[in-house]
């Protein structure tokens, strides 16, 4: 005796959010039943394991049937197969595209290609996220990337329009797309301490201030690419460290401002030239693809680690960067103020975001 067939179909599709989450997390039906039982589902309605199993199987099947639609969310609203109230549609889509930041962190900066997909097994065992869920998340990244890659206009808005995601989630996807497109190095050991949210913040800064779209949002190309002219202009900043006078003047200006205000003043004074050189060198080398990809590792190695070894507090660093960038305005010989500000404002916030243990 066995159940051959067991189907439950509602005119309005019956969806249980908790079960949906279990499905998204890549559990098998029997796992999901166990989890639900542990969560006390049996206390409701005098259910038994059989009932729970049937319900779970049914829901999982429903989600599987919906999955095809969820992959092109704009179809969800005007498909006829499932009658789902709009607020539930929104929930389904949003949850489907939500991802584990641990997973995203692993994928960050990697090429979203098939080759990487083989690494999903490793990521799965490393993060403890079910392989099925990894697949879904990875495919979501790839799908969003593929669609947005071809589109003009602002990245976040494009993602929102095509995938009907919330603003927050769309921004996260923008960061993922940006990283995948620019291929930033994020996997190095020294960068391991940085979370996905750190990178997402930095990506947001870069997108907002350094990309083509930041200047002109009617550009024809994907606004994920950094503005070439800007990167080129950054080379001009070299004068800040190459011109000895200017470097000294800059140092004295900063020291004057910070004296007595930060605890690590002496360390700062001793290190000023190294720090300034590091910042300017990073800027000037951004035109080279290799150096550009190493942006974050450079920031960590050349700035964050020295500061950390000198025990700078985040407050010290914030003050230093503030005055470091503003003092340049007082250098009369320096004529690249606009470029400088555009560069420093982003770098400053990135460094501050990344400056933690």
């Amino acid at each position: 005796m066995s159940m051959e067939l067991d189907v439950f179909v509602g005119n309005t599709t019956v969806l249980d959010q908790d079960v949906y989450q279990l499905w998204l997390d890549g559990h098998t039906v029997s796992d999901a039943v166990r989890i639900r039982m542990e969560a006390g589902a049996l206390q409701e309605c005098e259910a038994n394991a059989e009932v729970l199993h049937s319900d779970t199987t049914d829901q999982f099947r429903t989600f599987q049937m919906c999955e095809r639609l969820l992959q092109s969310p704009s179809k969800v609203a005007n498909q006829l197969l499932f009658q789902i109230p709009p607020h539930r549609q929104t929930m389904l889509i949003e949850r489907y595209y939500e991802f584990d930041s641990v997973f995203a962190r692993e994928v960050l900066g990697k090429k979203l290609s098939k080759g990487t997909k083989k690494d999903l097994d490793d990521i799965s065992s490393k993060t403890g996220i079910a392989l099925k869920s990894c697949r879904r998340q990875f495919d979501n990244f790839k799908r969003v990337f593929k669609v947005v890659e071809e589109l003009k206009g602002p990245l976040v808005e494009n993602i929102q329009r095509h995938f009907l995601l919330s603003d927050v989630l769309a921004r996260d996807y923008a960061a993922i797309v940006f990283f995948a497109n620019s291929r930033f190095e994020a996997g190095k050991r020294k960068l391991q301490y940085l979370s996905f949210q750190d990178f997402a913040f930095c990506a947001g800064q870069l997108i907002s201030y350094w990309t083509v779209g930041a200047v002109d949002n009617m550009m024809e190309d994907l606004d994920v690419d950094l503005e070439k002219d800007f990167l080129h202009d950054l080379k001009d900043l070299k004068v800040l460290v190459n011109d000895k006078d200017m470097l000294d003047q800059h140092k004295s200006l900063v020291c004057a401002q910070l004296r007595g205000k930060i605890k690590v003043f002496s360390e700062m004074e001793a290190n000023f030239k190294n720090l300034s050189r590091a910042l300017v060198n990073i800027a000037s080398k951004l035109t080279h693809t290799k150096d550009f990809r190493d942006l974050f590792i450079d920031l960590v190695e050349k700035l964050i680690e020295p500061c950390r070894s000198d025990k700078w507090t985040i407050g010290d660093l914030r003050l230093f960067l503030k005055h470091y960038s503003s003092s340049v305005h007082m250098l009369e010989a320096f004529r690249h103020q606009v470029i400088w500000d555009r560069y420093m404002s982003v770098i400053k916030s990135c460094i501050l975001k990344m400056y933690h243990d």
Partner: protein
Amino acid sequence: MPGRLKAKIVAGRHLPVMDRASDLTDAFVEVKFGNTTFKTDVYPKSLNPQWNSEWFKFEVDDEDLQDEPLQITVLDHDTYSANDAIGKVYIDIDPLLCSEAATVISGWLPIYDTIHGIRGEINVLVKVDLFNDLNRFRQSSCGVKFFCTTSIPRCYRAIMVHGFVEELVVNEDPEYQWIDRIRTPRASNEARQRLIFLMSGELQRKIGLKVLEMGGNAVVGYLQCFDLEGESGLVVRAIGTACTLEKMSTFPATATHPNNSSPSKDMKEPGFGEEAPGVPLSSGPPTPLRAQTFSSFSPSKSYSRQSSSSDTELSLTPKTVGHLCHFCMIPPSPFCVFQEYPFFTLTIFPPGFLLHVGGVVSARSVKLLDRIHNPDEPETRDAWWEEIRQEIKSHAKALGCHAVVGYSESTSICEEVCILSASGTAAILSSRFMQDGPLDTEHRLSQFEEVVSPGCGFCHIPYDELNIPFPAQLTYCYCCRRYKVPDVLFTTIDLPTEANVTGKGCLIQARLCRTKKKAQGEGNAMAISNLLPFLEYELHTQLMNKLKLRGMNALFGLRIQISVGETMLLGLASATGVYLTALPSPGGIQIAGKTPSDITYEQHISNMQKKINDTITKNKEQYEINPPEVVEEIIGSPIPEPRQRSRLFRSHSESSDEVSEIDLSHGKKDAFVLEIDDTDAVEDIHALLTDSPTPAGNTSMFTSVRVFRLNANLTNQGLNKIFSDLCENLLKSLYFKLRSMVPCCLCHLNFTVAIPEDELIQVAVTAVAMSFDKEQTLENGKRSGEKTLIKAITENDEQLQFNLEPCLVSSTPFFLFSLLFLSTPLSFPLALLLSTASSMEKASPLPEGRSRSLRSNRSYSGSSVAVVKMTPLSFIPGAKIIKYLGIINMFFIRETSSLREEGGVSGFLHTFIAEVFAMVRAHVAALGGNAVVSYSMKECVFMENPNKNQAQCLINVSGDAVIFVRESELELTSVQPQSATTQTSNGGEGT
């Protein structure tokens, strides 16, 4: 040339990729009606083609308009090879033929392919221009309205109820034609779909003609069924109740039918849909012919009849037509409109229409199918049903009733054996709605009736108490104290709104499985005939016991379904149990031991007895059954529980002569020890669902399907247990699924059992769950006053009924029994029933879809797809139906040869049911509607061949497309819109 059909193909969307190379499709459309075909241009390289075609015009007879569907085929153009079909849309033109229904069909309709399912959508516009046709001899019946609803539709009133209409058409099943061997499965499926569309169109037209002949303009309670008889053909049959309806808004109405009299009479006769408090009721006086009728109950007589007819048709039906042809119990005049059969498919009646209810009458007949030789004259099938109807009629007459209400017919087919069943409730109706004005007055004068309180009148016995056709315990009515009532009442109708009910109702279900030897032809039919009475008797016993366990005394909406398979018979009876205030309090259940000497056994029995008594007490509390204490002043007053047993005996002995054969089984029943099943049933978890009946807010319709496979050799008991567990588990699953809607009640639970294959049992359930929205209740109560509230509660009482399939009725168990034995030999040894079969199948309940209605359509305006509610009920709680757009009757076939890839049988069926819902919704939306009421899934035939990775499923659904408006929107215009707007903004966000 009385009609011009116009169709315009606007656009397509979400088309499948037909050209792998380009990932695109070059689509065009063929529009076909009858033998005329038009084509659109090819719209190259797009998955969202914009054809924007001209209007294609078809000039056709209205006869064709009724019979033929408009057939739209979407194809992919291919320069070098044959064009590939993407899919089809069949559009039933019928709703456009009636001036009061829809005027245009416009919207996105799913493109359906029998192999691939839904493949995109197409936007079409369809209109019909009808020219007046004065030809008296026309074959068309355009303009006759059809309703699946088994009550007078809400925005109409009945001027006259003409009575029963039936028709059947037969054809060869394309699946079994020789050509099927060489054509593709797709071609074969499409031929079948198209044929059934044509046949149901033809059937509807023919029924319409009959209605016109009778002077009516509508069919209410239209029930259409398919019998897939395999080799021997395909039968489409329908029954309904012909009426003359009138739109309510046009009151006071001028006469709309030839028979009607003056407007003044209209004014004084309240319509079906209206309140008619305290109308004088009339009932037929007891007939002197009773005795004569009764003689047909003699078992020996029926036995001989049967043997004489056992050639190719083994009939359970006695052919006792002779002396039953006329209704002599009542003055003939008012019922001349009745035609031959005084049957009504209605289950809800306007106040004052239903006078007395006798009990359930049913008839079954086992037939051997043979090829239908001449499809144009389906005499055999007609004759079969004729017999059954005659039997029903005679049963009703035996109960002193002149009419049968809540009438339905069904079949169960296995190989070449077919069980035909019919059932209804014998009743006496007021003639008010069935005759002309003058007659009415006359008739009323001639009657010697007094005003009876409407709350109990229908319970009063219609038969002569000195000559009861079956043993029953009569008492004086507990409401009015003036008329006799039976101790138990079984009916197939819905609970009359005016009935006095104590406490709440609940689902009562009896389930039974009986093994049977594998046999061929006549032997098989004989075996089944012999089994049937026992099956029904046991079902009835179960129903009685379960009813008593719950402390109730009446069943409504009883539906008994018997399914036949190779090696077993399944019986499922479901009904809503209630406590009718007018009827006596039910006795308890007494358990008697077989071996009274054994002390431990005695102990066990008394424990059981205590458990049962406790359960009854508990149930009474749960269902709030607290009948008022009655001063015992009358003969036959209810006997306290401990005396139940002796009472049974007494009633038995009273029943003396005719029913003497029943004595044995009666005695047996008395000693009947409750089976485990029954005790289990006690623990039914209905509390959850029968919670606080207040106006319903949300409704949600669903379908769920289960198939169970049995592989062990099981005894009847084992089988019963499994079957019972199956149903219990199905119900439990439903409760669990719907837990988020609690408090809610499950309404119109419709179980369908089938034995699709040798070792499978399939059970399908359609139901609607209604949740009670507390806030809304308050709001309604405050805003629209008590009237709404009360009305809603009455509606709820109706909702509590769970209507199930065909059934028997009786006012007592013994009556039912006697009915059964009428047509089968009593002497059949019980032992035969217990013969075991080597393999059994069990199917699990297959609940059909349930639709969940959203709180308000407007609140979801963010969606580009209109929300369409579906409900098996005839109304939408908290809403007003403002227009009926026509009947929806759709038939689909789905087949796959990649079953595993589609998620196995469950995945396949799940998708298919979802697709069927989607297509129903789309067609309703295209008609301009926002709901389907009286929805039912008539047929769900599922076949699989896992070895070949194949499966096939046929589904037939029907219902009435309507436009409804929320009462809250009508009345609370100031408050509701605000909240609705809030909801819109929330819901629309991010979509």
